């Protein structure tokens, strides 16, 4: 098979030389002539010659040959006519003009065998190298690079002579280098230069081509080995970066889910097992907003999330305030009872949503600006994950701003630090409790908007996050927002680095067990609060 390919390469090379050598004068030889030959080899070399000739009829003729609608007329004084059979009659392949009064009995079809078919395929791939559009030329060169077929070498040489677009030129040179290496031809110096080109290109195909080489000459083999190890290092670096990105993305999802809990559990000390349901309510708010927009203002669909975020904050926040006023305030100081009552509440909320929206997943659309991905080097960045990272950062920044910079935040901190003193200073502590709980729940609702973009919106949405959220808050240190940030991002990245080693589920189990052990060592998390507040 390989020797056959080499044979074709030599033949093609010969044919190109044959065309190229007799000074490129006006009376250039007829590129169509060889098609009339009886010999398959000559037909094949004629196809290759036609492909590089830049003749406007080349593409149509080669296509006709593949469709087996190409015929040769009887030879007269001139060269034999080459005709394409169409539904409307015969066309002259050279001029693309219809030919009248042709006797079909005089015509001989151009016969095709496997070697000719291969030549046709190679020629068709190469034809685009001469297209007017540089993007098309680049694409064709890219395809030739991937196939690194030695037969393409002359085509590329021809194309490079004319190429002026730098991008297309680079790819063509790379394709030429790949073909040269794959064919095993060229001097040592040429091959080392080719390896350098592939190393500079640095993608997966370059690496696998380099790995498939069996070099006999020592300097070439060394160059190839050095190139492979350099490419492998680069690849590892990219895969580490990719894992970091996935980890950041998972971490920001955890952070969003846990940020509300960092307020209700971390700051207030309330065990709210219905926290996941606040997230779920936010996701369903997004669904409702999108339904309304679809029905009344389809043009605004891309902006639907911007309506959903404040609404979700309000819906979950108001529900949170109601929960605090009607349930949790009776249970302060009884954490285990709070846990049970809020668990019951989460069942009620789930069933309420299931009864009104159905138990199946609800489809929440993704705005156009959030779908798609960018590739930077070896790094794939999907937009929805990128925006969730950004959103998590904004939410946390806003939350810290509220806690530190507003009078509400000041009161909240005062009440959690010393309730009686705060009351003595005239702060209405019950009202602050309700607002704090509402703030935490509202943040959970906003998280639900983000999670609706990457998870199934179903009544069980929140349950999947509750254990993770508690783990994040406890790991980071209760009452410490920065601790929550560090803990969420750490857990996300560790999870993603464990995944390729241990598999997704086992990785998660390992992280959970590590967390359980960690809590044994440091029951107050990575960044415990110091001072009197701890004593309670």
């Amino acid at each position, binding site marked *: 098979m390989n020797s056959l390919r080499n044979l074709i390469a030599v033949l093609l090379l010969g044919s190109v030389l044959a065309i190229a050598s007799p000074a490129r004068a006006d009376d250039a030889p007829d590129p169509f002539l060889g098609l009339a030959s009886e010999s398959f080899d000559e037909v094949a070399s004629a196809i290759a010659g036609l492909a590089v000739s830049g003749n406007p009829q080349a593409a149509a003729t080669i296509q006709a040959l593949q469709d087996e609608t190409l015929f040769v007329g009887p030879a007269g004084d001139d060269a034999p006519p080459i005709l394409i059979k169409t539904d409307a009659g015969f066309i002259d392949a050279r001029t693309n003009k219809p030919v009248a009064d042709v006797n079909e009995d005089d015509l001989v079809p151009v016969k095709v065998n496997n070697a000719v078919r291969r030549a046709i395929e190679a020629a068709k791939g190469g034809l685009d190298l001469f297209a007017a559009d540089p993007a098309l030329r680049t694409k064709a060169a890219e395809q030739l690079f991937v196939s690194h077929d030695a037969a393409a070498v002359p085509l590329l040489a021809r194309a490079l002579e004319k190429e002026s677009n730098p991008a297309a030129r680079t790819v063509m040179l790379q394709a030429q280098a790949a073909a040269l290496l794959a064919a095993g031809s060229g001097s040592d110096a040429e091959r080392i230069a080719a390896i350098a080109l592939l190393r500079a290109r640095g993608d997966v195909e370059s690496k696998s081509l380099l790995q498939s080489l069996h070099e006999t000459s020592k300097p070439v083999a060394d160059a190839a080995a050095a190139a492979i190890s350099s490419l492998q290092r680069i690849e590892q670096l990219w895969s580490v970066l990719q894992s970091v990105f996935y980890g950041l993305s998972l971490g920001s999802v955890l952070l969003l889910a846990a940020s509300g809990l960092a307020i209700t559990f971390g700051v207030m000390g309330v*065990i709210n097992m219905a926290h996941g349901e606040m997230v779920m309510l936010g996701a369903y708010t997004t669904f409702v907003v999108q339904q309304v927009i679809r029905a009344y203002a389809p043009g605004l669909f891309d902006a639907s999330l911007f309506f959903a975020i404040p609404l979700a904050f309000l819906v979950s926040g108001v529900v949170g305030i109601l929960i605090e006023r009607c*349930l949790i305030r*009776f*249970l302060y100081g009884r*954490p*285990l*009872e*709070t*846990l*049970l*009552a809020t*668990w*019951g*509440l*989460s*069942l*009620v*909320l*789930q*069933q*309420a949503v*299931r*009864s009104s929206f159905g138990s199946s997943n609800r489809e929440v659309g993704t705005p156009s600006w959030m779908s798609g991905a960018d590739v930077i080097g070896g790094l794939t960045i999907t937009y929805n994950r990128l925006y969730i990272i950004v959103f998590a950062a904004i939410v946390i920044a806003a939350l810290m701003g509220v806690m530190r910079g507003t009078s509400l935040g000041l009161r909240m901190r005062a009440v959690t630090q010393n309730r009686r003193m705060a009351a003595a200073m005239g702060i209405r502590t019950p009202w602050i409790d309700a607002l704090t709980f509402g703030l935490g729940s509202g943040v959970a609702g906003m998280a639900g908007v983000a999670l609706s973009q990457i998870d199934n919106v179903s009544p069980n949405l929140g*349950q999947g996050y509750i*254990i993770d959220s*508690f*783990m994040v808050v*406890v790991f980071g240190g209760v009452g410490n927002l920065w601790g929550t940030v560090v803990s969420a991002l750490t857990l996300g990245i560790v999870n993603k680095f464990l995944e390729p080693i241990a598999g997704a*589920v*086992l990785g*998660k*189990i390992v992280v*959970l*067990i590590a*967390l*359980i*052990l960690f*809590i*044994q*060592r440091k*029951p107050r998390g990575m960044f415990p609060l110091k001072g009197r507040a701890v004593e309670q």
Partner: protein
Amino acid sequence: MNRFSTNLCIALILGGAAAMALLNLATAPEFGLHVPTYAVSLVGKYLCYAILALALDLVWGYAGILSLGHAAFFAIGGYAMGMYLMRQIGTRGVYGNAILPDFMVFLNYKELPWYWHGFDNPLFALSMALIVPALIALVFGYLAFRSRVSGVYLSIITQALTYALLLAFFRNDMGFGGNNGLTDFKDMFGLRLQDDNTRVGLLLASAIMLVLCLLVARYVVTSRFGRVLIAVRDTEARTRFLGYRPESYKLFVFVLSAIMAGIGGALYVPQVGIINPGEFSPANSIEAVIWVAVGGRGTLVGAILGAILVNAGKTYFTGAFPEIWLFALGFLFILVTLLLPKGVLGLLQSKRQAKPGESKP
């Protein structure tokens, strides 16, 4: 009062189970009071749940450890029994492999994993149903109590423990049947599982084990040891300063409780005919907590009462009004914690005390 109600409870459990056995086996289906076999298994299932509730009450009611992962011990006991029952299927499986259970043939196992060896022996399987939960509780409890993780933190890590086990048992590579778990059991101790006699036998076994667990639990909590335990529950720091080691007391009762839960699970599996990773789900453990809370925490008898009441209610509601069940369960959690902190038994007790004590202010 406590002694009286415990004895009454024992009499009711044994008497009820014996009456059901008699009415199932000795009467014809046409007879008005005949108890159908499905009811026998249903009550047997409730009694297994009652064992779990009793185990939970022992740690929560008397040591103040709210374990949100107790169903994990129950499920592990169940898996140990399930492995024995799997091995008993033998060549009657779909693939007819004498050694490997069906799911292993399906997953291309060449030989039995090492941890499945010995489970063809019923005594070995039964002892594993006790030993494995005990070992897990020992390791987990030793680490947790030694570093003084308590209260809500302990609850959350017990929940994480059962969640980790849930994820682990869902994996096919674990060799426990993955998602589908273990099922299609044929017989145990040489008796066909479908026979009425076997079913009745399992009900009686469950009743007797429940009574035994109740007696052991009562012995523990009324002993000197139990008094220290209650002191640990109420003020752990003060007990420590008096010279006791609270972590040892807690660890002992935690392991004992895990063993009881394992017994419950082992009796549960042959009666329901399946064990799958769903039993590990954190929701199951929390549901068990509400049984205890409904009946009355720290009363032992109340836990049994609560388990039977709530599960009977569940059977009724999920059949008659499936939509309402979760609402009912959810509101039960809320109402019991808000209005009935001592459970049904506490309510009865306070009524009884209120009558003679009307002179009290």
